[in-house]
């Protein structure tokens, strides 16, 4: 049976049209865009076209606001490091506890170097408290170099009110960056009508290849490059352009634009069907995050009293690919920082599975997953010290209290 891929928040398959558009740039169109001769000129033209397509998807005012980078992580690092270098007198950063490691690990490092980092907490649904945000802005005011808040959370799909938050930062004269790696291509975005100064996106989350990203940089935003060298990207990101991938990303952006409506209707319906189907058959399971305000493709489901890796291994055996909310798969033992920030109990956080769909998924696949999940959970619960027969043991937390818990 054909394998089912429901891990599109981790990475996506390149669209065949993307691959086709890229291929000539490995062969006849291999020139360096900076060269004077015709080999270079053709490539230069293709890059300009791609830049325009990214601009359209983001609703940016100018195509010169699009800076190509090597990945989402590079865009995130560039944004934060630029803000603190360009405004050395400002040594405070405001972000959230649920950011991707691309932001959090960098902020932890900056904290070690003496910067002050404030991380907004989230509630059980994964929402930030705008009053807390407002009072932080008031309290730290012109000491804040940058606010960085993700547009959509990668684990739960929960959306953040970044347009409103950017407005609030702008009123105080503070720069605003958003990690929109999970949002771009899934939600309509119109940057020119917002106060967002910088935005990160990553090609491989929207059916373009891995290793290409973009930093949107609003005109007149003070900026310091991460990589200095040649004059590529108007000197804001040196290094010979990854022309094939840039062209691929351009095509992917055009396709995302064309599928935007389907993403928010067809894909959303599939996600809802999956969620309802699983929750209808599996007891002691619930959806994580803000179910009213989230990405259309993401379902984060907590299965109580079992651990996620076992679920993934069993699903994988049946050709179903998803990912786990427990960080066990990454070698660290703690459950994901996102689940912990939302106060999800350990017994549920470790059993969280993320299904993230794309326009390539079908109803038939969704139904196969709905059929596959309940027996897997039942089988693992049979092994669990918290489970007995049809339900959890009475007072599970008291009934099983291992040493060094």
């Amino acid at each position, binding site marked *: 049976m054909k394998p089912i891929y429901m891990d599109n928040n981790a990475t996506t398959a390149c669209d065949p049209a993307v691959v086709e558009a890229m291929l000539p740039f490995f062969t006849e169109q291999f020139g360096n865009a900076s060269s004077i001769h015709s080999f270079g000129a053709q490539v230069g033209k293709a890059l300009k076209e791609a830049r325009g397509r990214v601009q359209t998807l983001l609703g940016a005012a100018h195509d010169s606001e699009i800076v190509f980078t090597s990945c989402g992580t590079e865009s995130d690092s560039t944004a934060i490091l630029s803000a603190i270098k360009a405004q050395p007198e400002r040594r405070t950063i405001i972000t959230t506890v649920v950011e991707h490691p691309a932001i959090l690990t960098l902020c932890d490092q900056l904290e070690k170097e003496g910067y002050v980092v404030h991380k907004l907490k989230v509630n059980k649904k994964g929402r930030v408290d705008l009053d807390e945000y407002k009072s932080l802005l008031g309290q730290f005011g012109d000491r804040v170099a940058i606010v960085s808040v993700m547009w959509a959370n990668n684990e739960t799909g929960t959306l953040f009110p970044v347009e409103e938050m950017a407005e609030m930062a702008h009123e105080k004269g503070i720069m605003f960056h958003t990690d929109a790696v999970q949002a771009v291509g899934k939600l309509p975005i119109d940057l020119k009508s917002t106060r967002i100064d910088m935005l990160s996106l990553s090609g491989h989350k929207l059916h373009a290849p891995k290793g290409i990203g973009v930093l949107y940089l609003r005109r007149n935003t003070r900026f310091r490059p991460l990589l200095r060298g040649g004059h590529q990207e108007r000197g804001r990101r040196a290094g010979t352009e990854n022309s094939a991938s840039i062209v691929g990303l351009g095509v992917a952006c055009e396709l995302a634009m064309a599928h935007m409506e389907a993403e928010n209707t067809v894909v959303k319906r599939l996600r809802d069907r999956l969620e309802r189907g699983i929750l209808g058959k599996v007891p002691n399971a619930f959806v994580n995050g803000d179910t009213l305000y989230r990405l259309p493709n993401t379902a984060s489901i907590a299965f109580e*009293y*079992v*651990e*996620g*890796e*076992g679920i*993934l*291994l*069993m699903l*994988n*055996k049946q050709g179903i690919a998803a990912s786990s909310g*427990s960080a*066990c*798969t990454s*070698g*660290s*033992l*703690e*459950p994901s920082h996102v689940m912990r920030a939302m106060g999800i109990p*350990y*017994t549920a956080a*470790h059993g969280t599975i993320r299904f993230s769909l794309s326009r390539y998924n079908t109803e038939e696949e969704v139904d196969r997953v709905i059929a596959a999940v309940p027996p897997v959970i039942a089988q693992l619960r*049979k*092994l*669990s*010290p*918290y489970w*007995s027969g049809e339900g959890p043991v009475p007072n599970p937390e008291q009934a*099983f*209290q*291992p*040493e*060094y*818990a």
Partner: protein
Amino acid sequence: MWDYSEKVREHFFNPRNSGPLENANGTGDVGSIKCGDALRLMLKVNPETEIIEDAHFQTFGCGSAIASSSALTEIIKGKTLDEALQVSNQDIADYLDGLPPEKMHCSVMGREALQAAVANYRGEVWSDDHEEGDLVCKCFAIDAVMIEDTIRANGLKTREEVTNYTKAGGGCSACHEKIEDVLIAVNGRLYSSEPKPNKAPANLPSESPVKPKLTNYQRIRKIEDTLEAIRPMLQRDHGDVTLIEVDGKKIYVALSGACQGCQMEAATLGGIQHKLVEALGELVQVLPVGAMAHN
């Protein structure tokens, strides 16, 4: 996903002796729900002979936690309590044809469940001295707590000292920044390494910018010197290494003592290989003597 052995997968998909055990007379509950791995081991012990007649488990945990629990019950069934207590976490890992370094704690948990269950049968109180930190060195599977304890116990100041005492950082060297972070956390600051005294004997030509090709004799000397430098680390773990044969790019060694046949053998060989590649400036392969062709 994890590179689990066939044996681990097999025990995960078809766990032996799972579920509650009727009439169990020794039970051990260990693990950490926070860390996502916990296990209840149930024993039925014959009071006359102290033989474990049956053993069952219930586990909340990842694939290798379930496989380790399953393996443990198979290993100890039919053993007397005293025999069973000789089972080490290494034995559990070996039974499963090895565990990834990040998952060795699953076998440790198995061993602790056994100690707890035996203590429970004997009416004793078991308390663990278990503490486990983030994995720092993946080549030698050394975690942060182990490094911290060693730094404190020996007043270590530099990354080089940590490597000499714990082996951590002695392989691919990617974790050196993390080791320095642990040093800073313990000592409050980072001490710079002592400038190395120039130990090169006077009769050897001084290092020229273009490395001359080593003669066969020089090459083997260099290999031996490198092994000599690693030896103290191995001996600290009651192991040792002997050079057996150099066949072009293949370097055969014999591991002995605690290193021999241990689950970490592959990691140890990997660590030695890194050092030799560095010292010789060429790609070589370090193989156990058993891999030598018999001809």
